């Protein structure tokens, strides 16, 4: 391990690490907490839960978000659920099993200690959320309901219809707003963080832009927490919200924080396919649909062709002529294989010519089989003997509607097709980024006083995240990890008086931000920001998407450099800097994506193996499965930034003391 990275993993048995550390971590006494200021950027699950919890402890907290309200952070859009090792279903779940599934699901590229802690606190999250009044789905007996997600064989996912993220975020938001009302948190909505301020290598605050007035502001903090989400929007088309961006993390990176495993991107298998050039974003259809939806394409190329040309309907294809390729290739997990596996399998079939929509990039997700199954069950329950097929279908559809109604409505609204009657058409799309700012066990980056939480950090999901684990991690970090670990830093800060924002470091940082804004406004070129963003997205999707190879990545790096050059010479940002200016906001974010994209390709090129979401075509088995190289690549790649878009890689070796690493198999 290089000396620059110290993961600070506590000594002791895996099961004891967190309990022991939590009980011995230095504390800050309540009167000192009142004079310690914490800045939190981002108000999603990680940011809002951290803000509420830290304010409850007595710290002075400031929260920044670019949306008009903290409640609109993109965590709100998470659909399917949140995992927790409660074992309420008595189906063999345990902390260890959740830990094991997560490490295996991440293709053995995550840290054992962090993941075990995540599994350990997962139960408390559900308790906390229920106590806040989060209306999780329940059974008739009044107890909480669970369902399955990919990559697991137990039912450990808690959910609230297809709106779990919304309900969890509104819970965290209610805790946050409560603290705002009590005066313990000051909220800065419609503000975007544009620079990290460091003094002698220690993080001391931020520069933020008031998005309503365009005014730049300086804010001091004894610690700065970034809960700013992932960077999937580097691909332009993704399931992320339009405003989701890498800017806060990227500014931190350029101030010294290392960026870990940037190429680990999650492509989600079940999204609504692209319909045309006008497309601004892609819509996810929750993974929970794979509980009851079966994925297939035609067995015969002629049928696929006929579907593409709209000559036949999916229901015209007989059962024996359908290829349920996930059930065929992975009988043990079937349609519930992890996301990376399901996505690649869809791409494989479509590349082979079996795609079913006009672009040839779609597969079916079919509910007919389970609609009948549910219909029969309901008929039995209701004592209907010899029900007609129409009756069975009607009863079955009611069950499906109860489970997934809002997702079916959403699908119909977007595509104009009724998914109760026709199978859905789906295709993989960029969804989540496992990579992010490198953090130690305390969630601190290698810049003192600067932390990263939730999707913004890299720590828990390795090379592939399991479904319903993002919500778990965001809330674990915010509710149950940072409130403890931040003490180990802040107990040394009790003598630091609030630093005046007239300090030269603040002045310098603000000037730098101003210079960038002036530059963007001053180009006055001929192309819109979106023009560049779309071009970048296409390069990334084609060369650094579901499958990658050395040649393509090298080409992409050159193309991105050229595009960046063109951007800074020919972008057009209308309006003024000192007013609300959405185009200026976008321009700043795309400028950062244009640098990040290059680093992602560099990282993907360096990693000469296939693991999780990172699939290098050169490294695959004869059956087309990912071929990991543990001898040479069992490490975290943490990239350090140097002036002028130069990077150096630092390695953190991954040590597995509790899990025997093996080839990941879902067969």
């Amino acid at each position, binding site marked *: 391990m290089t000396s620059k990275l110290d993961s600070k993993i506590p000594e002791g048995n895996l099961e004891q690490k967190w309990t022991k550390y939590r009980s011995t971590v230095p504390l800050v006494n309540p009167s000192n907490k009142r004079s310690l200021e914490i800045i939190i950027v981002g108000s999603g699950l990680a940011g809002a839960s951290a803000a509420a919890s830290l304010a409850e402890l007595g710290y002075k907290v400031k929260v920044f978000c670019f949306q008009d309200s903290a409640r609109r952070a993109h965590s709100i*859009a998470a659909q399917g659920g949140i995992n927790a090792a409660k074992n309420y279903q008595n189906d063999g779940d345990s902390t260890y099993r959740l830990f094991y599934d997560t490490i295996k699901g991440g293709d053995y590229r995550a840290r054992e200690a962090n993941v075990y802690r995540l599994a350990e606190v997962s139960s408390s999250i559900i308790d906390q959320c229920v106590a806040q009044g989060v209306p999780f789905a329940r059974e008739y007996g009044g107890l909480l309901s669970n369902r399955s997600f990919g990559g697991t064989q137990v039912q450990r996912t808690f959910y609230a219809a297809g709106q779990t993220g919304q309900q969890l975020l509104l819970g965290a938001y209610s805790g946050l707003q409560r603290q705002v009302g009590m005066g313990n948190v000051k909220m800065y909505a419609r503000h975007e963080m544009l620079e990290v301020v460091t003094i002698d290598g220690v993080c001391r605050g931020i520069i933020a832009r008031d998005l309503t007035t365009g005014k730049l502001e300086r804010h001091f903090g004894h610690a700065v927490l970034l809960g700013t989400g992932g960077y999937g929007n580097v691909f332009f088309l993704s399931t992320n919200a339009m405003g989701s961006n890498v800017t806060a993390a990227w500014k931190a990176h350029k101030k010294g924080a290392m960026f870990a495993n940037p190429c680990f991107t999650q492509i989600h298998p079940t999204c609504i396919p692209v319909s045309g050039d006008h497309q601004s974003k892609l819509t996810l259809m929750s993974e929970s649909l794979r509980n009851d939806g079966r994925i297939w394409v035609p067995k015969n190329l002629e049928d696929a062709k006929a579907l593409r040309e709209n000559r036949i309907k999916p229901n015209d294809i007989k059962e024996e002529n359908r290829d349920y390729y996930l059930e065929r290739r992975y009988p043990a997990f079937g349609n519930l294989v992890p996301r990376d596996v399901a996505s690649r399998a869809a791409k494989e079939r479509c590349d082979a010519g079996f795609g079913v929509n006009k672009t040839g990039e779609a597969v079916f997700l079919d509910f007919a089989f389970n609609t009948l199954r549910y219909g029969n069950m309901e008929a039995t329950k209701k004592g209907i003997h010899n029900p007609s097929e129409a009756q069975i279908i009607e009863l079955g559809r009611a069950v499906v509607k109860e489970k997934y109604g809002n997702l079916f409505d959403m699908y119909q609204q977007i595509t104009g097709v009724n998914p109760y009657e026709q199978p859905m058409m789906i295709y993989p799309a960029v969804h989540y980024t496992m990579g992010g700012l490198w953090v130690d066990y305390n969630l601190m980056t290698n810049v003192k006083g600067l932390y990263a939480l939730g999707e913004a950090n890299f720590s828990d999901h390795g090379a592939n995240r399991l479904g319903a684990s993002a919500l778990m991690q965001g809330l674990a970090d915010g509710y149950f990890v940072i409130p403890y670990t931040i003490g180990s830093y802040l107990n040394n800060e009790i003598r630091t008086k609030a630093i005046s924002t007239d300090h030269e470091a603040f002045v310098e940082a603000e000037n730098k931000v101003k210079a960038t804004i002036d530059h963007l406004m001053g180009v006055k070129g001929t192309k819109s920001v979106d023009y560049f963003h779309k071009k970048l997205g296409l390069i990334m999707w084609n060369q650094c998407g579901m499958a990658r190879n050395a040649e393509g990545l090298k080409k992409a790096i050159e193309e991105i450099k050229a595009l960046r050059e063109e951007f800074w010479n020919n972008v057009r940002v209308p309006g003024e800097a000192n007013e609300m200016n959405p185009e200026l906001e976008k321009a700043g974010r795309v400028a950062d994506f244009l640098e990040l994209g290059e680093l992602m390709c560099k990282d993907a090129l360096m990693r000469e193996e296939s693991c999780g979401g990172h699939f290098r075509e050169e490294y695959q088995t004869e059956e087309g499965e990912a071929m990991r190289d543990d001898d040479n690549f069992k490490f975290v790649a943490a990239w350090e930034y140097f002036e002028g878009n130069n990077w150096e890689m630092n390695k953190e070796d991954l040590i597995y003391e509790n899990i025997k690493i093996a080839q990941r198999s879902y067969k």
Partner: protein
Amino acid sequence: MENNLNLNLKVWRQKNAKDKGGFEEYKLSEISTDMSFLEMFDVLNERLIVEGKDPVAFDHDCREGICGACSMFINGRPHGPKQAVTTCQLHMRSFKDGETIVVEPWRAEPFPVIKDLVVDRSAFDRIMSAGGFVSINTGNAQDANAIPISKENADEAFAAAACIGCGACVAACKNASAMLFVSAKVSQFALLPQGQPERSARVMEMVAQMDNEGFGACTNTGACSAECPKEISLTHIARMNRDYLMAELTSNK
């Protein structure tokens, strides 16, 4: 099937809060029926930028109907002509070729216009801060299954909690009342055991803050619920009124 439309767009333009504002007309051609309403605005803005004009500012983020940011008043209706969808999920197949579409911001005094179609909805956050929570600090919770909750109540609480805080209810109401928004939160907690200890205080404080923000009174017109993209039911207003009355009668303050 996909088709192309020619449209005449009348959009409210207002430089800032102080500007008087007015309608501008734009002709759009070749708008695919597969586009969302906001993607149609993307096309318009792309054109305005290339022409050297100021694009139309509007709030939007998730574009899948859940963040509650988008807020266009389309042809006299919040989120446009379709039932139970947000502006971002409204697709152009809901419009006809040659149609004139009028787009305005939410009109309500407590939602002042910031620019073009963007309004300030921070009043909603302040109402939430006044009482839209269960006072439980992190770490105090008992086991999640310790208190069974009937499925009916859990489902009804969820239906209330599905509110996305977009403000369409206020925009739809002739009195600019926020009763549907406030009652959805009051109702969610009133239906759950966790919400009981603060039930009276919550309704009193949230309603007081709602009044402070300048939202109007409810006259039971029902436009709020009819226009709500999440179909939040009027029942919640009834429940809140009942709770408010009970709280008034039993209050020691």
